[in-house]
């Protein structure tokens, strides 16, 4: 724990907290978090994790910034349109906190590369916008025993939870056993999303990531936090570990990673 004067000043509001202190901030500064996607969820999550001083942040996204992203993907500015999202993210995050080591993966995350990518991280934060990636990340985290901070948003609603099957909790497949058929989910007309809903859920994911790093509080394990922006409510849904889960159950049948087909018109969160 050898903070510079600049770091003491920068992280003072964390250090003041009894549950964090210098030792907790040191854990944050040594933490390695991988963020899947630099979009609606990944943006606010990355901003707060970088500001918090997370030592290493990896971000994967193979997309470029589009004008239609800017309404909610707050990592990117108007001048970034056309630029790779991961490089735009790098610029924004390093401007906020030069202490953070950023690793950009400008590639599609697949069954071929996901193990290699997440291997060096403590925590995976899923901000992906499609089912094939969610299942892939879930399965890869299960096999690698990585804590997965999951979030999703649609229209005025969002939800977040923490999957930690290696510590007894459920996994994504316990909650959604079957991947919806590619033609079924979700239609282009369902791509509507109130911008700040992405912020609310992404920030909730960042909060859970820091709690995991610090080992404090009651994590969102086995609990799905569901946000309804129109009614301004959060409700909680219990998620149980499914003993028949194909991935983490007693008679699991999934033994390797699968690349599911992408829906022809996947909504871009």
């Amino acid at each position: 724990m050898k903070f510079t004067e600049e770091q003491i000043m920068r992280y003072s509001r964390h250090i003041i907290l009894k549950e964090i202190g210098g030792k907790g901030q040191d854990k944050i500064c040594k933490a390695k978090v991988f963020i899947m996607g630099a979009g609606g969820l990944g943006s606010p999550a990355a901003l707060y994790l970088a500001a918090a001083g997370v030592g290493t942040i990896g971000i994967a996204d193979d997309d470029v910034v589009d004008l239609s992203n800017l309404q909610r993907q707050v990592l990117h500015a108007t001048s970034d349109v056309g630029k790779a999202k991961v490089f735009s993210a790098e610029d924004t995050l390093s401007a906020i906190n030069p202490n953070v080591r950023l690793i950009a993966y400008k590639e599609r995350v697949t069954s071929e590369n996901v193990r290699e990518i997440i291997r060096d991280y403590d925590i995976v934060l899923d901000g992906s916008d499609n089912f094939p990636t969610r299942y892939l990340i879930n399965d890869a985290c299960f096999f690698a025993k990585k804590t997965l901070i999951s979030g999703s948003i649609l229209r005025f609603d969002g939800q977040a939870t923490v999957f930690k099957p290696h510590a007894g909790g459920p996994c994504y497949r316990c909650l959604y056993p079957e991947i919806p058929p590619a033609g079924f989910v979700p239609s282009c007309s369902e791509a509507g999303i109130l911008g700040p809903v992405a912020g609310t859920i992404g920030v909730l994911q960042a909060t859970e990531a820091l709690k995991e790093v610090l080992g404090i509080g009651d994590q969102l394990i086995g609990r799905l936090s569901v946000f309804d922006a129109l009614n301004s409510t959060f409700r909680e849904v219990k998620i149980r570990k499914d003993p028949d889960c194909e991935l983490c159950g007693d008679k699991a049948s999934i033994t390797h990673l699968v690349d599911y087909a992408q829906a022809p018109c996947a909504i871009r969160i």
Partner: protein
Amino acid sequence: MSDIKVDAVLDITNEVCPMTFVKTKLKLETLETGQHLEVILNDGEPLRNVPRSLKEEGHRIVGTKKDGTKFHLIVEKGM
């Protein structure tokens, strides 16, 4: 106050709230429970707030000495 063995000394007279407490807290984290830190701080706001915050975190103030416009606080580290 003179019979307490001090394990570390910290001058926070150049700091303002909340850095006064932040610096004190970081210094205390380098000590073991039961060890003593002498904190030199200014009268007024620091003297009102720093001891109170330290007590809230479970540390004990075991001595105070006025030194002109400054104060010397002896803090015993809690758990």
